[in-house]
């Protein structure tokens, strides 16, 4: 199984990318897709855009490493991870994770695992842009301890290819 991993500046069609997963296949029983979307507000205040800075080279490597770990942990039939960088407008997708398996638990677990790791280990930094009149205010998003806690729950790996049910 060859995962699809893309880092890109351009917007993408999350639904079309998820649809690609099952095309012309009949071995997949479950597809989970997670799309992270740029919201138009942060803590109740309107934002005009997000800018994602990333560490080229390291971002690709880190994502690929975690995709390989997901493939080792769960019996996956497909994985797609797309992560954008650069300026992203409200309503646009930031990140997409699609996982496919013959049964649902593996697909759900792998998608959550990948998202928790992307949030805490992939070298991306979000900056919020707020506009009031002619003034543009930019602030870096702070990391959330809840995200670290979410990632920590995967620290003890289950045995390879845990038994799952459809």
């Amino acid at each position, binding site marked *: 199984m060859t995962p699809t991993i893309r880092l890109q500046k351009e917007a993408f069609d999350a639904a079309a990318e998820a649809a690609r997963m099952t095309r012309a296949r009949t071995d997949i029983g479950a597809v989970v897709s997670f799309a992270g979307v740029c919201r138009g507000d942060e803590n109740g205040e309107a934002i005009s855009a997000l800018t994602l800075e990333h560490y080229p080279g390291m971002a690709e490597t880190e994502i690929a490493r975690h995709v390989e770990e997901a493939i080792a942990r769960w019996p996956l039939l497909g994985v797609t991870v797309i992560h954008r960088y650069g300026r992203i407008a409200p309503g646009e997708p930031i990140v997409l994770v699609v996982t496919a398996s013959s049964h649902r638990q593996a697909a759900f677990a792998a998608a959550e695992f990948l998202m928790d790791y992307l949030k805490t*280990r992939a070298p991306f930094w979000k900056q919020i842009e707020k506009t009031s009149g002619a003034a543009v205010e930019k602030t870096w998003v702070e990391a959330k301890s809840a995200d670290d806690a979410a990632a920590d729950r995967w620290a003890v790996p289950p045995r390879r290819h845990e038994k799952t049910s459809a």
Partner: protein
Amino acid sequence: MKLRYFAWVRERIGKAEEDIEPPAGVATVGELMAWLAGKGDGYAYAFENPKVIRAAIDKRHVRTDARIKGAGEIAFFPPMTGG
């Protein structure tokens, strides 16, 4: 060796990367941060709370006790907020 800075570490230092040769006594990532913090106001501001700064050597996450000898590229950045 090459140093790279990201997000507000980059903004505080005022540059995205630089080539640097730390003195012989600087052996670990943590010691490198302490030494950099003495290089000027921007560096002092960037590293004022070294506990929150994350580091990578040659594009892999490392802890502050990692040894810098032989490193080609060392990066410093705030906690990641991707996804």
